[in-house]
């Protein structure tokens, strides 16, 4: 029976858990359905657009393109260019997002890439830029594109890296472009691929990341080779080392890669592919985005573009983000900024993005989940119109140091590894792309000079390109270099208190200085270090390291030696751009939501309180009746009826037995009496008050149902005390001593309940039920687990309890117990009442008495002769007879008078008979 019950309970718990799980899933599903608005329908159409081949190309070039159309047309258009080595497919996510905003988006594969024909001209004005102009012409003929004037569509242009330069070149050569958003791209390709960051003349530019941009730089060999490899390898097979490059581009690369220095022709060609040539013409609003982790196109490139645009009068917003060619493509949030830019400047919707300057400060140990970069917002890019960038000076120390370049330029120092990231392809940002390259830097002894600052007293956020003056002299004793210009690499390290160095952005500033005087006299130069955004903590030092080699660059192979020193008053100038931390807007909605929740909960609370106030009404006629049960029914879901139409009454001072076989529904009735189970119908009244869950009238009922319940880690005494304290009633009313006397636990009451035997717990539980001397005591199988003397004592206690004017309700399946303890009986079977009355009445109902006599046959004959008596059965020494109202005393007198020895008269058997008769014969107990 118990295991069945447990099984049912486990099933129920399982059902509840499943229901909760289902609820959560359903809620999530509902949220999903409601929160994701149906995306507006888009159409994407693949087209091939023929454009003129350009100078020296006889045939037209076929550009593979896709037009994304929003639902509402005509709409402004956006030209979306891809990165080097990519195609129109690598920008499809951006194209879809922009089309969803309501733009007609034209994404195409540049000539020489993917399915487009033609050869790569490196954004040449004659080829790729002319193609883009032809695409604007093509848009001008479309009815689904908003036209500002005949032949002049409203169009924006955006792209990253290779595509970003194209955006600038197009906008600089085509006045029809109405807005642009170039990302992580170059200003001057010659300076980007052959950087020289040293200038003998003072650098006077007062923008944060201006480079010295001196001519005749050092070849950025690794990056150039990596890029060349991408495009050459994308050919349609064959063994042409030039792949799909135009011959002059390929020849220029081969020349640079083999010699390590640029010829004037190469410089001229790279220059023609540079926005620097045309950016001065741009007046369209420009959102200029550059990466802080970018050793290919550094912050100096965007800085130069910004100066040109500002001079031309273009409305300009600059964003430096925590990423770049080394650190991840622009994030979704940045792409949203591009969308907002076009929304405002092409469609006139949304808020004005303004013309400020945002930069992101990356977490010191890279961008990790949960540690997003901090965005700082300045009113304007410094140095463009009026306020120049501010510098913080840090003094460096270090004596003149000799550095040597080994023959062949190897082994070489390491600063960063180009091409670890696919950002340049212009694809969607990858989760893995956020790796920091700060950690790979390594310098070699003998090749590097170190100049160190004192620990900083205050933290500083370096924002841009630091500057330093250096003196370099040729070492006379070293093997005489055939070239007389010094190639050196200058880096800035953040040095922690434990001496560990970090190279922010993995960035290095290559310089070519000279010609150096043969006699060993120094030349003094200003070096513009690589542009970075780096928070340097207080207590950290800054170190400037000058090396003779770097694996990323073409290092001359002749051995050489130089002496590097600081001018007497030299200090490191760190650019800083004060700004406000970019914050999310005032959280009005969320605060209103919190207020709404509070109001809703308060309202529910008030409704509940009002409901409680309109509670039940007492029945004054029943005020003295401890318990009236009428029509009580409990049906469980699933059809089981535990109690059906049960009615009985317990009068004051009675000891009532609730008798029935196991499973008769006794415990269910008692649980309903405790307010634990809600009846399906019918009611119970205690002293006239209806019993419901938590009804105050329950405080007059002491109960012990289905076993004891105690906190196992506390002693019996503490359990009783805490239980009584939980009732909130005065401690003086508890009667703890009396209850403990009944429990009879002795000193064990000061032991943990966990150590008690079953019987001890049982007695303690009955003692707990008697705390406060309840007017009605409800006990479920109280003698279970007690030994005979304890059972005897318990009977006395219950009788005594009733004798003092209280009422006791005892449930039992044991007939003997009920017969011995109770004055009245209610018999239940299968949830129904089958008999009620005094014990005598119930016995009389069947009226059977057992006489133990010395001569059963004679006794039976005598009894048969008495009026109304019916002898049921004659045993060896016992006669069972139905007396039918005849007092037992009269029957006994008659037997004795007839000389029959009567040894005993029992009703026990009689109640059993009655019980069996009432509940039916199928009960086997």
């Amino acid at each position, binding site marked *: 029976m118990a295991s069945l019950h447990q099984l049912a*309970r486990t099933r129920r*718990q399982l059902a*509840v*858990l499943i229901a*909760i799980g289902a609820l959560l899933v359903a809620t999530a599903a509902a*949220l999903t359905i409601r*929160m994701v608005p149906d995306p507006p329908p888009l159409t994407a159409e693949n087209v091939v657009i023929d454009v003129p081949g350009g100078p020296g190309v006889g045939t037209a070039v076929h550009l593979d393109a896709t037009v994304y159309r929003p639902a509402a047309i005509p709409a402004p258009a956006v030209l979306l260019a891809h990165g080097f080595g990519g195609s129109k497919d690598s920008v499809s996510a951006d194209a879809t997002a922009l089309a969803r905003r309501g733009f007609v988006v034209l994404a195409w594969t540049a000539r020489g890439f993917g399915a487009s024909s033609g050869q790569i001209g490196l954004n040449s004005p004659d080829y790729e830029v002319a193609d883009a102009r032809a695409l604007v012409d093509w848009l001008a003929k479309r009815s689904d594109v908003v036209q500002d004037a005949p032949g002049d569509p409203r169009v924006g242009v955006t792209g990253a890296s290779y595509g970003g330069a194209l955006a600038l070149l197009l906008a600089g050569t085509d006045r029809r472009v109405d807005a642009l958003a170039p990302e992580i791209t170059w200003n001057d390709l010659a300076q980007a691929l052959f950087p020289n960051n040293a200038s003998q003349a003072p650098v006077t530019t007062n923008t944060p990341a201006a480079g010295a941009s001196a001519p005749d730089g050092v070849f950025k060999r690794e990056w150039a080779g990596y890029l060349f490899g991408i495009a050459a390898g994308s050919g349609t097979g064959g063994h042409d080392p030039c792949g799909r490059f135009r011959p002059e581009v390929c020849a220029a690369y081969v020349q640079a890669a083999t010699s390590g220095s640029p010829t004037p022709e190469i410089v001229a060609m790279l220059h023609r592919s540079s926005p620097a040539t045309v950016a001065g013409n741009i007046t369209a609003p420009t959102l200029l985005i550059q990466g802080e982790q970018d050793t290919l196109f550094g912050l100096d490139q965007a800085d130069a573009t910004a100066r040109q645009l500002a001079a031309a009068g273009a409305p300009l917003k600059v964003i430096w983000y925590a990423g770049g060619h080394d650190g991840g493509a622009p994030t979704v949030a940045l792409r949203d900024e591009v969308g907002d830019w076009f929304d405002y400047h092409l469609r006139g919707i949304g808020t004005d993005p303004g013309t400020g300057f945002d930069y992101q400060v990356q977490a*010191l*140990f890279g961008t990790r989940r*949960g*540690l997003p970069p901090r965005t700082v917002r300045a009113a304007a890019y410094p140095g463009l119109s009026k306020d120049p960038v501010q510098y913080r000076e840090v003094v460096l120390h270090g004596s003149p140091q000799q550095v040597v370049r080994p023959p062949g330029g190897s082994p070489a120092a390491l600063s960063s590894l180009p091409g670890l990231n696919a950002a340049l392809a212009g694809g969607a940002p990858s989760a893995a792309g956020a790796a920091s390259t*700060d*950690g*790979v830097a390594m310098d070699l002894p003998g090749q590097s000079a170190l100049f160190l600052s004192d620990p900083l007293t205050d*933290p500083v956020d370096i924002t841009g390109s630091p500057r330093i003056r250096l003196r370099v002299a040729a070492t006379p004793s070293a093997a005489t270099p055939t070239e007389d210009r010094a190639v050196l690499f200058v880096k800035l390290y953040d040095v*922690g208190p434990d001496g560990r160095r*970090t190279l922010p952005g993995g960035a290095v500033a290559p310089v070519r200085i000279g010609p150096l005087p043969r006699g060993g006299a120094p030349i003094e130069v200003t070096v513009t270090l690589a542009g970075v955004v780096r928070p340097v903590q*207080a207590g950290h030092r800054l170190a400037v390291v000058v090396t003779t080699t770097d694996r990323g660059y073409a290092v001359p192979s002749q051995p050489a030696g130089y002496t590097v020193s600081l001018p007497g008053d030299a200090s490191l100038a760190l650019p800083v751009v004060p700004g406000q*931390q970019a*914050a999310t807007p005032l*959280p009005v909605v*969320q*605060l209103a939501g*919190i207020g709404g*929740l509070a109001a*809703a*909960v308060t309202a*529910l609370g008030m409704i*509940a309180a009002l409901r409680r106030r309109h509670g039940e009404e*007492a029945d004054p006629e029943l005020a003295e009746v401890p318990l009236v049960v009428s029509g009580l029914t409990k049906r469980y879901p699933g059809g089981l009826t535990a109690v059906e139409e049960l009615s009985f009454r317990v009068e004051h001072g009675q000891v009532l037995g609730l008798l029935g076989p196991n499973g008769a529904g006794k415990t269910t009735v008692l*649980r309903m009496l*405790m*307010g634990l189970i809600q009846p399906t119908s019918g009611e119970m009244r205690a*002293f006239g008050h209806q019993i419901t*869950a*938590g009804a*105050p*009238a329950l*405080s*007059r009922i002491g109960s012990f*149902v289905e*076993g004891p*319940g*105690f*906190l*196992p*880690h*506390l002693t019996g005494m503490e359990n009783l005390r*805490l*239980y009584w*304290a*939980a*009732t*909130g*009633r*005065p401690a003086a*009313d508890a009667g703890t001593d009396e209850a403990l006397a009944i429990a009879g636990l002795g000193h064990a009451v000061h032991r943990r309940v966990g150590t008690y035997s079953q019987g001890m717990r049982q007695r303690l539980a009955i003692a*707990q039920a008697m705390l406060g001397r*309840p*007017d009605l005591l409800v006990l479920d199988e109280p003698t279970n687990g007690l030994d005979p003397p304890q059972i005897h004592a318990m009977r006395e206690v219950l009788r005594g309890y009733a004798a003092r004017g209280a009422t006791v309700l005892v449930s039992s399946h044991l007939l003997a117990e009920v017969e011995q303890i109770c004055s009245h009986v209610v018999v239940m079977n299968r949830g129904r009442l089958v008999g009620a009355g005094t014990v005598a009445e119930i016995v009389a109902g069947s009226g059977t008495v057992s006489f133990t006599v010395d001569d059963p046959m004679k006794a039976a004959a005598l009894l048969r002769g008495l009026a109304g008596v019916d002898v049921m059965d004659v045993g060896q020494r016992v006669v069972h007879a139905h007396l039918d109202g005849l007092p037992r005393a009269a029957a006994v007198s008659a037997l004795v008078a007839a000389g029959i020895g009567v040894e005993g008269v029992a009703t026990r058997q009689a109640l059993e008979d009655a019980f069996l008769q009432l509940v039916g014969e199928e009960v086997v107990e």
Partner: protein
Amino acid sequence: MNALGAAPGYRAPATLPLRVELVRQLRRRRTVLTLGFLALLPLLLLIAFTVGRDNRSRGGATLVDLATASGLNFVVFTVFSTANFLLVVVVALFFGDTVASEASWSTLRYLLAAPVPRGRLLRQKAVVAALLSLSALVLLPAVALAVGVLAYGSGDLVSPTGQSLDFATAAGRLALVPAYLAVHLAWVAGLALLLSVSTDAPLGAVGGAVMASILSQILETIEALGNLRDYLPTRFNSTWADLLASPIDWGHLASGAFSGLAYATVFGLAARHHFATKDITS
């Protein structure tokens, strides 16, 4: 006897006083061990940092470098490493165990028959669980602060993005962190309470709430869900760090508070409704 038919001295609003429920919980070894472990954790971290000092990988700065930059940074690291799981478990434990364990001891039916009205029983238990949770949320950073200042000094708080806050300001900001976590983790409390009244197995209630948190954090890593992830209850778990920005960025903090309270309200009302109407069969 009064008009409501109650025994002399019985008043429903006086049942199960907070003091009594607090004693009932504090006398449990589980409560003492949990709070004790939280107090011990900063010491364990300190030992780990001290022992592991020589075994660091070369290369750039690490989280541990930042953690030992100052006593305040040590506190931030301690909270950072516990907020997503350990503190969730603690809140789930105090709330999930509270009713279910009474059911498993069979004491629930005697409390309800005393009678402690069901709504009141749930409220008193929730209040005590909240008090215990809050003391856990305060205890951990408080001990970490004491340990951290002794070990690493009372220098500035340095944020991962290099911002510095002086000791007084930062200590004030850190005092707000438990407050935010308490409000944000209310969703765990609500869910654990709902599970606690739905099952007689304390482990099921506690584990269920923790599992829900883990599930939510897993869903959070699925980028394809996009903005839907904003509706996940754990979305604003790490937002307490915004309290350390200068100036404080209240936007996401308010979202996190709203998210926590909204889920807590739904779960809490469901728990109350379920508990008020269910048949107690334990």
